[in-house]
């Protein structure tokens, strides 16, 4: 077997039998990482840390929460008023959901921009989309738990979507509700699922990391690592960079939690759920708005549901829709343009999702929805046929040398010698 690698004999003894230290050293310490990653590569670790924050605060909150329609709202208010620092726990958890989506959306758009979904990272990407789906389910059910007006009516609207399924739709909705309306059984099962799904996410995140470490991170120029000269060990270079990224993120997060805790929420959710009174506008949380816009853009109920889920499904097959062998949009002038169109389109969809479904907003929603699918289903497959990509650098090390070899650094290097 391999020679003892660790100074501490106890560590060596354990590692010989259970190679956990070898594993950690390999995956977290010496793990070779491209040396040209920019700050966008911080968002993966940020997402992981946010997930841990959500789980830890969530577990403590659940110790004080009562999943019953008569007590849920008041138990949340008890957390806010009587539990020591309960307000802090709840505001971290509540805003943490929004920040989780901000981080993950940036992470996804980074993947789109730098072609991180392309071979050999297709499964890595698919697992990521799966995490997004699980996150959406978890966030939706979590929003129901405080049992405010938006909780109740959001749950009613979204669960009713399943009634669009032909033949068995109504039965499925009854089955989901555990009754004939959103009621106590619904709240109970949503709490149960909201508790368990994050651990499913952790499982998929582990698979996501295993797939990542198979080929390592993609990088801003999107070409494969050629050898040792292109990589640096993960520790200390990226651990410190992730720490810096985390501290900036935490500052912004803390500003929201301590000074604008309800900015991203809806005031109606501080009104206890009332099945007899429908709010004037039922709006989902901001991170669902683009999908909500797609849902409402389609005049047919079943069609709307299919397109809404289709908007995510299309991401699953993205590695096979984009046939260009060049990953990074730095070398794909046309793709880069269309990437930004897609970003604008998604923002437009988000805006339209918040607007009432009437007049010009309906027309715009349909256009934006059409363009979203047009981007993935038409533009991406056709693009390689018409696009002339820019010449790729020979290796990761080469462009960095040419890019920064201005007079001063050359002088500095000479002086050192």
């Amino acid at each position, binding site marked *: 077997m391999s020679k003892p690698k660790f100074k501490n004999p106890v560590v060596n003894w354990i590692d010989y039998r259970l190679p956990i230290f070898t594993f950690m050293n390999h995956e977290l310490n010496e793990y070779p990482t491209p040396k040209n990653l920019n700050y966008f590569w911080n968002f993966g670790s940020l997402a992981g840390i946010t997930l841990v924050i959500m789980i830890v605060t969530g577990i403590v909150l659940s110790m004080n929460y009562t999943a019953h329609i008569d007590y849920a709202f008041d138990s949340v208010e008890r957390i*806010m008023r009587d539990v020591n620092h309960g307000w802090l726990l709840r505001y971290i958890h509540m805003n943490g959901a929004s920040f989780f989506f901000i981080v993950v959306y940036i992470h996804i758009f980074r993947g789109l921009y730098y072609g991180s979904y392309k071979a050999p990272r297709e499964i890595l990407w698919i697992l990521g989309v799966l995490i997004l789906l699980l996150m959406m389910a978890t966030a939706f059910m979590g929003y129901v738990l405080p049992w405010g007006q938006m909780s109740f009516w959001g749950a009613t609207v979204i669960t009713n979507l399943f009634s669009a399924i032909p033949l068995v739709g109504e039965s499925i909705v009854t089955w989901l509700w555990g009754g004939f309306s959103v009621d106590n059984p619904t709240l109970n099962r949503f709490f149960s699922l909201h508790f368990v799904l994050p651990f499913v996410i952790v499982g998929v995140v582990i698979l996501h990391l295993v797939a990542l470490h198979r080929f390592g991170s993609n990088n801003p120029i999107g070409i494969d690592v050629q050898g040792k000269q292109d990589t640096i060990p993960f520790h200390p*270079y990226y651990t*410190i960079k992730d720490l*810096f990224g985390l501290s*900036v993120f*935490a500052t912004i997060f*803390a500003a929201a939690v301590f*000074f604008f805790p309800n900015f991203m929420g809806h005031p109606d959710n501080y009104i206890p759920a009332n099945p007899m009174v429908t709010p004037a506008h039922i709006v989902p949380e901001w991170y669902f708005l683009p999908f909500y816009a797609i849902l409402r853009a389609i005049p047919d109920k079943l069609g709307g549901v299919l397109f809404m889920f289709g908007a995510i499904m299309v991401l699953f097959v993205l590695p096979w829709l984009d046939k260009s062998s060049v990953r990074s949009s730095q070398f794909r002038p046309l793709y880069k343009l269309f990437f930004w169109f897609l970003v604008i389109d998604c923002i437009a969809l988000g805006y339209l999702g918040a607007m009432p479904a009437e007049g010009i907003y309906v027309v715009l929603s349909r256009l934006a929805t059409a363009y979203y699918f047009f981007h993935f289903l038409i533009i991406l497959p056709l693009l390689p046929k018409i696009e002339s990509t820019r010449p790729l650098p020979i290796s990761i090390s080469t462009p960095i040398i040419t890019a920064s070899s201005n007079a001063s650094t050359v002088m500095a290097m000479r002086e050192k010698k």
Partner: protein
Amino acid sequence: MRFSKLVLYFLILFNFFLSKLALSAGKAIEYPDKNWSFSSIFGTFDKASAQRGFQVYKEVCAGCHGMRLISYRNLAALGYNQDELKAIASQFEITDGPNDDGEFFTRPGRPSDKFASPYPNKKAAIAANGGAYPPDLSLIIKARPNGANYLHALLSGYIEPPKNMKVPEGMYYNKFYSGNLIAMPQPLYEDGIEYLDGTKASPDQMAIDVTTFLAWASEPELEERKQLGITVILFLIVFSILSYFSMRQIWAPIKNKN
């Protein structure tokens, strides 16, 4: 890094813009912006105003509106001492029980009791108010968009209805209420109450005071939250600067090699 800044800017803008829109969708009425003592980052509740606001609540609002999430003991945060709290609580009749004989009985309130409710139950409240339920006020500032300005505006918004408008029986005209017809009659009149601290009880003063009191009731943690927030943010800024320079130092050999 130009690209990264752009995207960050975009996404942050996206998020805040949308949430703002989500909140403001369909709400076109503008409320006068009052400079609340609690609205800034360093803001705290004006205790004297909140105490007067409690008096307004007790003598005017509490006839119809409950505050079921607040206990008398919570009022300590407004500067009342234990004896005062006991005295305040004992002014109210609380239904308790069942006792050892299986009977419900009334007794004077204790600081640990929740605020006494004006009606025995919601149905009674609706029946007594011509079909309109007077909402519980414990969370009212958080449960309305732009809550503090809204409430202050609403309380000051009772004016003569336009000539061509018929106000139905049991409804009142309010220029700040959505739809302009509200089931709550004008609650605040000049010298409607006599302030214990001698402040002149103008309708605007009472509206400001009761709004301050209800803002405290909605967010009793606000002062603690903001104080802790300043400490946390200062720490994180220093930590960010330190980790930035640590990063620069650790990366120096890599950057120099290129």
